[in-house]
């Protein structure tokens, strides 16, 4: 075998070995992946700090308006809760009488966003909480506005969150107004798609879409987004809608991971 042939063969092997690894999907690389994430997260956070602070200053007015609105909402809700306490107690008593299973109580962990995955093919964020904080895969991730995504990979101290707008994301959902169910999936466009609505669906632009109780990992009633466009499905006799996520996914800084 000539020297050129040997060289060619060596180069070919260099390409083929990683290609084979793609299909084997070995788990031995998982600790290495999270070590790299851990190693790069500190310089990234330091470099991003001034940019985030500037953004905070630039959005000061909007934040102040939000603060005022939320303060008013809190006052209204506090009054409503006070009024409903009696009803809750009554409800509890009746539940006890009927011996029904009590509702699931959720606890949550607040996590800071380290950064986004630098790939145009994915919508993934990395957060600073991991298995050590009780995080595991498939846990729902939310913020004050609605659903953010779900935990896709949990490392010892960091986790990767698959955002609502990623093509790999899907969750059982329903139209809050009409109660028609479907599945919300992500797209590469940055918006979501509500699929499998019946052809005679009464869905309209502006309707709110929330998580359904059919979802195995998300609690019922979490806001996913708002319908912005209706389309007939090209593959099945159903209606599809484009849904604008309720959360500004490009401006996330803190998220809440719900632990069951």
């Amino acid at each position, binding site marked *: 075998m000539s020297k050129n042939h040997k060289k060619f063969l060596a180069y070919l092997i260099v390409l083929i070995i*990683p290609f084979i690894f793609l299909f084997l999907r070995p788990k031995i*690389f998982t600790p290495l992946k999270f070590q790299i994430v851990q190693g790069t997260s500190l310089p990234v956070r330091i470099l991003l700090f001034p940019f985030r602070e500037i953004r905070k200053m630039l959005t000061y007015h909007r934040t102040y308006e939000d603060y005022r609105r939320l303060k008013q909402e809190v006052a209204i809700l506090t009054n409503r809760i006070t009024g409903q306490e009696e009803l809750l107690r009554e409800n509890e008593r009746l539940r006890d009488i009927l011996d029904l299973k009590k509702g699931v109580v959720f606890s949550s962990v607040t996590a800071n966003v380290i950064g986004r995955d630098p790939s*145009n093919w994915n919508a993934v964020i990395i957060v600073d909480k991991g298995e050590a904080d009780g995080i595991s895969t498939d846990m729902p991730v939310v913020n004050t506005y609605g659903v953010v995504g779900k935990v896709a990979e949990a490392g010892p101290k960091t986790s990767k969150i698959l955002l609502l707008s990623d093509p790999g994301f899907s969750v059982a959902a329903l139209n809050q107004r009409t109660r028609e169910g479907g599945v919300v999936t992500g*797209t590469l466009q*940055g918006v979501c798609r509500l699929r499998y609505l019946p052809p005679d669906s009464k869905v309209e632009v502006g309707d709110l879409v929330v998580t359904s109780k059919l979802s195995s990992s998300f609690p019922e009633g979490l806001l996913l987004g708002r319908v912005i466009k209706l389309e007939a499905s090209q593959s099945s006799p159903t209606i599809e809608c484009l849904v604008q996520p309720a959360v500004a996914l490009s401006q996330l800084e803190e998220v809440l991971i719900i632990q069951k």
Partner: protein
Amino acid sequence: MYRLTAIAILTVVFFIVEFVLFNILPGWLKPDILLIIVVFFNLYLGIRYSLATAFWAGLLKDSLSLQVFGLNIVAFLFCAYMTTFVKRYLNYIGSPSSRILIIFLVSVINVVAHYLLISIFSNVNFYQAAIHVMLPEIVMTTLAAGYVFQILRKCVRYFHI
């Protein structure tokens, strides 16, 4: 060995820069800086160093990604090979436009390779991918190439790579 270490450090630095840029720049403005590095080292140091860069850059990108592990490594390695092929016909020493043309072609190859590899494991809508991922990435990578090449050239001289 010094060269490989210097290339590895430079790749990590540019990876962090890319990571930061992705977090501060909006929508379309996202160049693939690591691909530019792979092409740069191919043009300046040859295929062997380009392959090492491709492997290291792919490993870094795969670590942060949720895609199948190794997808970026394979795509970058393939791009390193294709750069060697493309430069035979297009690389004119001292011509910046020929380098930009090479970057343009290699970034087209990169997004197509990426699309094909992702399609093996999941369903990707080609129209959406073309409009929202491939086109922005090709345009931005080509536009950023000239500036990144200048910085890389300075780094190579400064560190005697």
